[in-house]
C-alpha cells in the first residue's frame, strides 16, 4: 500500500443538525487521512455520525466547517452542480438496501452512471460488461432486481459503483441486509476490488466480521473520532 499521498484528507470537520432552536452536533472536529488503495471501516454506535461522515466524504452532504480534499480537490467549496459532476466521476456508492432501480435490468442499472459520461453506446456496453464480469453476473444482466437474490443485487450495486472507475468507493452497511453467506461473498468481492483493482473503500459497518476485512478500523463516538480506538489489520 502506498501511504505517501492520502487520497482523502479531512481536517477539522464539523457538522451539526438543527431542530428548531436546538443545534445537535453530529461530527466534531474530525481529522482523518485515507490512503489510496486503503480499505477503511468506520464503526461506532447508532447516531455516532458514521453515515454523516461517509456522506460528507462522498459529497452528498455539506459540512458546517473544516476541509475535505479528495485527490487534492477541496470538495467543501464546490457548488451543488460541481459536486454532482464530481460525484459522477469520482465516487462509487454501495448502499445497505442496494438501491437499484426496480424497472431497469441489471445491465441498465450498471449503465445508469455512464449515461452522464458522454461515452458512446458501444463504449458503455464494454464498460458495463466488464463491471458485471468483475462481480460475476454477466449471465444475469437481463434480469431485473426483483428477479435477483439480495447478494446478487448487492453485486449489481457494486458493479454500478465501479463502472465509472471512481476514485473512491463508499459503502454504507453493505452487508446489513444480507445473510451470512452472501455477506461473506460481498466482503470478499470488496477485498478483491482493493487488492486487484487498487480501489479505495470507505465502509460504514456495525458488523465486526465485516470490519475485520478492512485494513483499518476507525471508531466514532458521539461525533468524535476515537484516537485511541483504531484497529490495524
Amino acid at each position: 500500500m502506498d501511504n505517501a499521498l492520502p487520497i482523502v484528507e479531512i481536517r477539522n470537520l464539523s457538522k451539526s443538525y438543527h431542530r428548531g432552536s436546538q443545534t445537535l452536533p453530529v461530527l466534531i472536529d474530525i481529522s482523518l487521512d485515507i490512503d489510496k488503495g486503503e480499505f477503511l471501516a468506520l464503526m461506532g454506535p447508532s447516531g455516532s455520525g458514521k453515515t454523516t461522515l461517509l456522506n460528507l466524504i462522498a459529497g452528498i452532504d455539506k459540512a458546517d466547517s473544516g476541509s475535505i480534499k479528495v485527490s487534492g480537490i477541496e470538495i467543501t467549496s464546490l457548488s451543488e452542480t460541481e459536486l454532482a459532476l464530481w460525484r459522477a466521476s469520482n465516487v462509487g456508492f454501495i448502499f445497505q438496501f442496494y438501491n437499484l432501480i426496480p424497472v431497469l435490468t441489471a445491465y441498465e442499472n450498471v449503465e445508469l452512471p455512464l449515461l452522464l459520461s458522454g461515452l458512446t453506446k458501444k463504449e458503455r456496453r464494454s464498460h458495463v460488461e466488464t463491471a458485471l464480469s468483475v462481480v460475476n453476473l454477466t449471465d444475469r444482466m437481463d434480469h431485473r432486481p426483483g428477479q435477483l437474490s439480495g447478494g446478487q443485487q448487492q453485486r449489481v450495486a457494486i458493479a454500478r459503483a465501479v463502472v465509472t472507475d471512481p476514485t473512491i468507493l463508499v459503502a454504507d452497511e453493505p452487508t446489513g441486509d444480507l445473510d451470512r453467506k452472501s455477506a461473506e461473498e460481498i466482503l470478499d468481492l470488496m477485498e478483491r476490488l482493493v487488492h486487484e483493482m487498487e480501489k479505495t473503500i470507505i465502509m460504514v459497518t456495525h458488523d465486526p466480521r465485516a470490519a475485520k476485512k478492512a485494513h483499518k478500523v476507525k471508531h466514532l463516538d458521539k461525533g468524535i473520532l476515537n484516537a485511541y480506538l483504531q484497529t490495524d489489520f
Partner: protein
Amino acid sequence: MHIFKLIFRNAFRHKLRTFLTVLGVTIAILAFGLLRTVISAWYAGVEASSATRLVSRNAVSLVFPLPLSYKDKIRQIEGVKGVSYGTWFGGIYIDEKNFFANYAMEPKTYLAMYPEIIIPSEQMAAFLRDRKGAVAGRKLVERFGWKIGDIVTLKGTIFPGNWDFVIRGIYRGRDNTVDETAFFFQWDYLNEALKKAGRSWADHAGWYLIEIKDPHIAADVSVRIDKTFKNSLAETLTETEKAFQLSFISMTEAIVIAIKLVSFVIIFIIMAVVANTMAMTARERIGEYAIFKTLGFRGFHIGGLIFGESIIITMIGAIFGIMLTFPVAKIFAHELSAFFPIFNVETKTIYMDLAASFVVAFVAGIFPTWRAANIRIADGLRRIG
C-alpha cells in the same frame, strides 16, 4: 439504455393507478372536445357566412316585413351586385319536435348568391318549373326518408293552414360547413296564397339578401341602404350576414359562456387528478430520485423523468380521448341534428385538446419536480429501507 425507456417503464409501474389516470384524461378530453364542438356548432352559421352578403331586415324587428318594392331601390344602390329576398315560414312537419329551418325565397336570385348550395341541374330545373316545388337538404331528407316527388305537408304557424310541397330537389353542401338540414320553397307560392287570403304579409319579404361587389364596402353599402329607407314606414337595418347570424347567437350567449366555462372546469379537474397522481408517484420515488442525484444526475434530469412520465400518461389519455371524440361526435350529430345542423370536430378543437393536455401534463409535473429536485440527498436516502 435510452432514458425514454426508463420514463415509459416508470409510467406503467403502478398499472392500476396509471390506467385510472389515463381513463380520467380520456374522458376529460372527450368531454372537452365535445363541448368545444358544441360551441363550434353554435357558431357554424356565422363561420359559413360570406363577407360579400348583406342582410337587410325591418329595423324594428325581424317579425315585421319589408315591402317588396324595396327590391328595385336596393338594386340601384352603388356597390350592390344582386338582390334577393326570403321569408321565414316556420312550418311544422307532423310534430313540433321535428323542427327544421324552412323558408320561402326567390329561387333564381337567392341560390345564385349561395354557390355553396349544390343542386343537380335537372332537379333545379324541376324546382323552378313547379310553383309548389321545394328543395331539402341531404341530411333532412335522410332524417325523414323523403325522396324526389314526395309530397310534404307543413302546418303553418305564422301563416295558418296546411301547406303541401313537392320535393323537387335535394341539395348538398360544397363542404361540411354547409347546413344540409334546411327546407326552402318558392316565395311566389307563399305570396299568392297570402294575396288570396288578403293578408298584410302579401307583397312583403321577411328580409333582403344583398350581394355586394367587394367585402370592403360592406359598411358603406349598409349605410346607403338604411339611409335610402330612413323615415319610411319600414326602416331597414342592414348588416353583414355574419353580424346577422351573430345577432341570433347573442340571444343565447349565456349558454355558450356556460359551456365554455364547463369545458375549462373539466380541464381544471383533470389537472388536479393528474397532479395528484404525479405527486403520489414522486413521493413514493423520492428515495430513487436521491439515488439518481447521488450518481450525479441533477435537478433537470429528475425534472425530465417526472415531466416525461406526466406527459406520457396525459398524452396517452389525450390520444384515446381525441380518437373517441370523432365517433361520439358522429352520434351526437345524428341525435342532435335538429339543434346542430353542422356538428363537425374541427382541427382547431384537436389542437385545443392537445394544448390542454400539454398544460395539464406540465402543471401536474411542477410541484413533484420542485420537491424531488430540492430534496437533500441524505434525507431522500433515509426514506429507503
